[in-house]
Every structure is written in C-alpha cells, then in structure tokens.
C-alpha cells in the first residue's frame, strides 16, 4: 500500500471541557463565514443536525472541504473534512488538514458569539481517512499509516480507535 495514494484526510480537534457555549450560535457564525468568504475553500451552505443526538452537529458545507462542530460519540469538536483531492504526500495532506482545522478553531474562538466561551484542546484530536477503499480499516493499513502519522505529530501518542466498520481512525494526544 502506498500511503501517498491516500486522500480525504479528516482532522477533528476536540473542544476543551471548560467551554460553555451554545452550539446553535454556530449556525449564525457559519452563515457569516459564507457571506464573508472567510476560508480559502468555496463555502456553500450550512446544515443543522443539532436535533440528531451524537450526530454531525452543525456543518459548513464547502466544495473542497466541510467544516463542522461535530458531536459524534457525544464528543464535540471542530472537524475538517477534506473532500477534494490534494497533490503531495500523505504527510503533506495530514498537515494541510491539521492546519485548516487549527485555523478554523482560532477563528471560532474569536467570533463574538464564542469569545471566552469556546476553547479547543489542541492536543486532543483525531485523524481519520474518509475513504474505505483508499484506506480500509485493517491492520495492514494501520501498519503503513501509523509511522506516517508519527512524522506529522512528533511527541504525540497515536492510537488506533473505533470498531472494524468505522473509518480508519487515530486518536492523537499530546502531553
């Protein structure tokens, strides 16, 4: 398996437990992001799934990528979901997704609705590959991709997570 063939890297950065914010406010913020073209990607629409327990929360749908305050497994975090292909290596794609997620976290923390209320724990994140063909959730794939992830997150603990039917997913935790 060639790790550099793997695309559609997702990075989720979890919200710090000290945060106290209203998820509903994200709708307003994301609409503003579309209006102001605040990200390099083409931003298209907002999808609200707050009514679904442990669901995808509030999504900002883009052409190249989606951003969301995702609440899967009842663990809320900023999810960057890369949809379109990227040139480069697996490592560069992970770095791009991580960088985009971090930038979005910073922007969210500064939004008037969230200022002082929403904080991200930048050392607790997940990386997963949203394509079961390019990166099947198998031991073989993990053996290839784990060392690549270690290059991207030096000093972090990297652990495989989830059940066999899930996307290949790594919990990444810093000290």
């Amino acid at each position, binding site marked *: 398996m060639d790790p550099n063939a793997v695309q559609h890297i997702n990075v989720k950065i979890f919200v710090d437990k000290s945060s106290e914010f209203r998820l509903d406010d994200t709708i307003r913020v994301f609409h503003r992001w579309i209006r102001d073209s605040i990200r390099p990607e083409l931003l*298209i629409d907002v999808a609200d799934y707050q009514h679904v327990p442990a669901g995808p929360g509030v999504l900002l749908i883009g052409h190249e990528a989606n951003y969301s305050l995702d609440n899967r497994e009842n663990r809320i975090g900023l999810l960057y979901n890369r949809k379109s292909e990227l040139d480069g290596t697996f490592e560069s794609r992970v770095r791009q997704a991580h960088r985009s997620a971090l930038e979005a976290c910073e922007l969210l923390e500064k939004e008037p609705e969230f200022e002082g209320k929403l904080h991200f724990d930048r050392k607790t994140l997940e990386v997963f590959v949203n*394509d079961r063909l390019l990166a099947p959730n198998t031991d073989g794939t993990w053996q290839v991709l784990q060392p690549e992830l270690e290059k991207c997150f030096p000093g972090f603990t990297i652990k495989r997570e989830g059940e066999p039917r899930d996307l290949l997913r790594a919990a990444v935790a810093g000290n």
Partner: protein
Amino acid sequence: MKASNLQWKAQLGDRVPETFSAELDVFEHEIALKKQNKIEDRVFAETRLRRGAYGQRYDNGQRSDGQTTRTLNYPSSATKGPNTLWDAPGMQRIKIPFGGLDAPQMEMLADLCEEYSDGIAHITTRQDVQLHFIHIEDTPALMRRLASVGITTREACGNSVRNVTACPIAGVCREQTFDVTPYAKAITYFLLGHPDAQSFGRKFKIAFSGCKENACGLARLHDFGAIAVTREEGGKTRRGFELWVGGGLGPVPQQARLYDEFVPEEEILPLSQAIARVFARLGEKKNRNTARLKFLVSKLGIEEFKKLVTAERAVLPYDPRWTDYLKDLSKDNEEPLKAPSLLQIGAALAPGFERWHSTNIYRQRQEGYATVTLALPLGDITATQLRAVADISRTYMRETVRSTVEQNLVLRWVSEADLPNLYADLNRADLAAPIAGTIADVSSCPGTDTCKLGIASSRGLAGELRTRLAENNAALDESIGGLRIKVSGCFNSCGQHHVADLGFYGVSRNKNGYTVPHFQVLLGGEWANNAGSYGLAIGAVPSKRIPETVDRITGRYRAERLDGETFQAFIKRIGKAECKKMIEEFAAVPTHEEDPSFYSDWGDPREFTLGDIGVGECAGEVVYPIDFQLVACEREVFEAQLQLDGGNIEKAARMAYESMLHGAQALLKFKFLVAPEEAAMIVDDFRKQFYDTEIFFDPFVRGKFAQDFFRIHEESALPKTNETAHQLIEEAQLFIEACYSCYARMTATPVKASV
C-alpha cells in the same frame, strides 16, 4: 469528489449483479460524455434523475446571504442540467421498495452517508433514503456500492415509476386482509426499466395497503393505489385488490378514483402495465404541471379511462412474470429469530420503558411478537445509529427492518420478552424517543434546507414543534397525543400536509417592506382510511407564530371536544369560520424594529428572502393597495370554502373563480394603476401583461398557475360538482399565492442582514 471513484468497479467485482453493473457502466460513460459537452443539458438532467441524482438548493450558483444574492464560484462552469452547475452538490435518492432493509444494506447506507454525504441518512415520506451534498461524479461509485447489497437507485426520480410503497407492518398487521409485501416487490421489479414505463410525462407513484381503514399504505393519494381485499368464489377465498387510480397531492391534490372494487391478484401486474401504456400514450407531455395521471383521469373521466385501459390490457402480449411470483408467495416470508414470548410484567423495568412501550410498540398478529418503531427526528439517522440498528436487527430478529412514510424505522418480529433488552440497546443508540405516531412525531419534507423549490423552512418548523411538543409531554395527552402534524416547505406537498390533522405549507407575505416567511394552515385532513380526505387551507400565519397557533388549536380541541369526537369531526362542527378566527390573532407581524426574528426563518438567521430565486428592490415602508386587495382575495377563497361546506357548490365555485379575477386585477392595478372590471378583459390584459411577459411565472412551475386561471375562466360557465368545486378552490388558493409571489418579486427585498 472521491479519489477512489474509478477503483470501486474492480474492487466490488462480482458482488454487483451483471445487469446493474452494465447499467452503471453506461451511466459512468454518460457522465464522461457530458463532461466533454457531448450530451444536451436537458437530456443529461433526465438521465441522472432516472438514476436518482437530483438537484439541490443553490445549484444554479446563486445564493442569498440575507443581504444580497451572491455567486458561488464553483471551479467549473460546466452544467449537469439547465441552470444546474456541475460542481454544485446534489441529492441522491435511494429507492427502498416497500421500505424493506436488511443489516448489510443499513451498514452500506452508513458507509455511504459518511463518505459521500454529511453523515446523515434521511428517510423520506415515501420510504426512500436520501443523501445530501453529493457530487455528481461520486454517484456511479456510490450506486455500485449500493448495488453490491441489492439496492438500485434506478428510476428514483424523473418521469418514471417511483419507489413502490407499502404498509410497514404488512405481514404482521392485526387488521390486514393479507400481506401485500410480495405484490409490492413483484410490481417493483416488473416495472423497473420496463419499456412501457419509460415515456411518461411525469412521475408515477404506486402504493399497496393491507386494509382499507388504516392509513399506512395511503393508497388513495397515489397514481396507482392497491388495497388488499378478498372475495369468496366457489367456496374458495380469492385474493385481489381494490384499485384506486389518479390520486396525488402536489399543488392540486386529488383523491384517487375507484377503478375496480376487485382486481384479481393475477391481474394486478398486467393491469399496471396497461395503465402505464395508456399514461405514456395519452398523458400530457409538454406541460409538466398537468402531466400526472390524475389530470388524464380527470380529463377522460374514470369510465373512459377504464375503457382505454381494458382495451390496452386485451392486446398486451403475455408475460410470464405477471404470475410467476404467485406460485410461491411465501418465498420471501419473514421468519422470527427467537421463539414467541410474553413480556414479563413482574420484572423490574427500566425507567422510561413503560412510556416507550405505550407509544412505540405494536403487538403483531403473531402472538408473542412485537413491532418496534424508532421515531427518527425529522427522518434523520446517523451512520453510527444505522450500524447500531443493523446490530440490533441481527441480535433480536432476522434483519427485518422497514422504513415508513412517517420517516421512521420499524423493527419487526421482536420476541416480546426481549423488549426490555432491546429498549436498553436502543437507548444506548439514542433511538428510543417515546413519541412514535404521536403529535410530537412531526414529519416534514426537506424544505429550504436543501430543496430547490422550498419557500419556507419546513424542517426548521417541524424540529421546533417536535422539541416543544416533546417537552410538554403532548404525546401523553389522551386528547391530542394521537394527532398528526405534517409540514411542507411549499405547495408541492412532499410533507403530505393535506392528510394531517394539522398541516402546514410554506408561503411568503410582504409585510412592512420585507418578505416574511409564513405557513398556510390546513386543518382536518384525514390520515386514516388510506388518506381518506384532504384538509383545506384556512389562512397564513407567520412562521414564527405557528407554535402558538398549534397550542391554540390543540388547546381548544382538548377543552371543547365532545366525548369520542375526532379532530376532523371537531373541526367540522365548529366550522371553518371559527377556525379562521382562531388563527387570525396570530396573523399580525410586528415591525422589523420591534421584532426582527419574524423576518428570518426557523434555524436560519439570514433575513428571509425569495432572493435565491430572484427579487427586485426594497419597497421601503409603503403599503400598496395590492396588499389589501390580495388579502381580500384570500378572504374570498375562504368564503368559497364555507359555501362549499354549506353545500352551495355553484356559489363556492363562483367565489373561487372571482377571487382569481380579483387577484389578477390587483396585479394589473399595481402595475398600471388602472385595470378593467369585466372578466374577459381582465383575463386578456393579465395574459398580455403578466403571462406573455413571464412576469407572473414561478421559477419552477413556470406559467402553471396562470394557465389554471385561463382554463377556469374558459370553463366558468360549466356546471360544477362538489369535487370540481373543491379542486377549483385549491387552484384559486394557489393562484392567490402566486399573485403574492409575483408581487414580492416585483417589489420588496430585505435591506439588511442580521448576520
């Protein structure tokens, strides 16, 4: 789009049946040709629609941010249909015949909604599944993966035979005449891709119901609705169907006509083929607004229609598939996984179990087994939940799951003693909401969330009502708990608002120089008796005041209903005038300064606008005479309803017709300050100034409402029946709505964004 798209064919290999694989090769080829611009837009649009790949809101590259309409700069300017950009995300509809799902299918849907969509699978009001925000170039791979688990998206949209629906409790129902499942399955695959079902002017919907009285099948709102009946012949019980044809909701709802009280089972497939041929040959093709079967049946009359179908049936070449499946109807019978058992009443039960049991459990005709409903919020389910349901379906039964037209899932064949454990498992997956089939189990079409046609946020309103009603424990209220609420984002009725106790559909109104989201209120539709009667609109209420309106109406019913009086009977007893009075106090809209929240829709902070379909400039605070004139037209339509209720058919029809004349006159006066008074001249002037110029055209149904007006004018001297007067009132209501929309397009847009 996915980097893996082209690799799925090889990856799946033999798991995709050859016929499906060949079809998908063709579709992939067509996509390639379209990318080279070698297929016309309209041809490719119908091609993808017949594969279930539908358009979605903003796919013309224009989106209002509440302040102004902006261009969405997609990478490619190529198109996948008229005014539909290639890169714009779309919706994928997935047919689930009779709602039947097994565990691998649910797991596949889970994978697909994660990888290609937004993590949500949406159950529709016709037992389909929809995934949103899908790139067209991802669709062949997605379809191959579905095909690998026996699901096709073929003919999920477009002018074709749509998903065949059936009672979700068919086979386990206590009241059924017999199990309609094998018939629904047989007709699905018989008509799928059938040459006689490829030349329709519009879609064709089929439903099967196991009995007459209950609602599950909704047979009478379908083009082809079959209700299971039996007949004693020569000492033997013979199976057949009471067949209804030409029903439909949409802008002009129509009750199906009884075609035959008894169509023998061996005739149901050939008859469907004969009807398909007649529809294909004689159905309207040019004007899609009058192309559904209901218009053909109305135009010909049921007797003439029957004559034509009978003649067609007589010349059909024999097809062994008509009856092959009847040789072993039990072939697909479901079997339980566990032995029957009874719920142990004495056992300690988890908190909440009893309440859930009271609403979500249906005791099957097979003693010791229950069917369990999972009440999904707005029909939405996550990938994780789908996998949980797959696991549960393997643990407690033989993967016997069905989707429902109320946007839920049902688990069949649960041994009753397993219910406490099943409840615990469902609770862990957040799937044990104790509201199934109650007033809090609100259903809704996608509305402005994703639909191109949506006017108001039906999902936003439905979500708000669901939350409030659940919090108020309305589901437990003996008097109102069993009522049904259904919401549509526009007059096209995908939320099936006509057959709800309380139905709503989205409209807009110009108020104080802004466009304000409203919902028309319909009361007293009948869900039972296979959608036995349709509610009529009694007036529009601002979107933000609908929850109060619901409280008022249900509160009054709770307080004033007579012993055993149904909601329909109550509404009939107090009368439409009184109903209108009830909602009128909620009609007022505060100024923007007083309460700007009225000027945006539920769950969407943007100032409400019709900007996504093109608008003019702000008219400031000026109130034009047309504002009053259109309100007067609405009142006339309402008066027409009262006349019809009183049995004054001709007067009702006359008033409805006149309301249309006055609406047209109001627009003429608005544009030219003067307008003729004589009917023929109003029609002529309106035709010249608003129809020929297309000013009146709705962006999606084009000139339909004006054409209705012209036809009604031409037929104004003809005698009316109760049915034609009822339809005329519906058409008049929609024409007035179209006058409002036209006026809105000509005048106001909001000037400031609240975001």
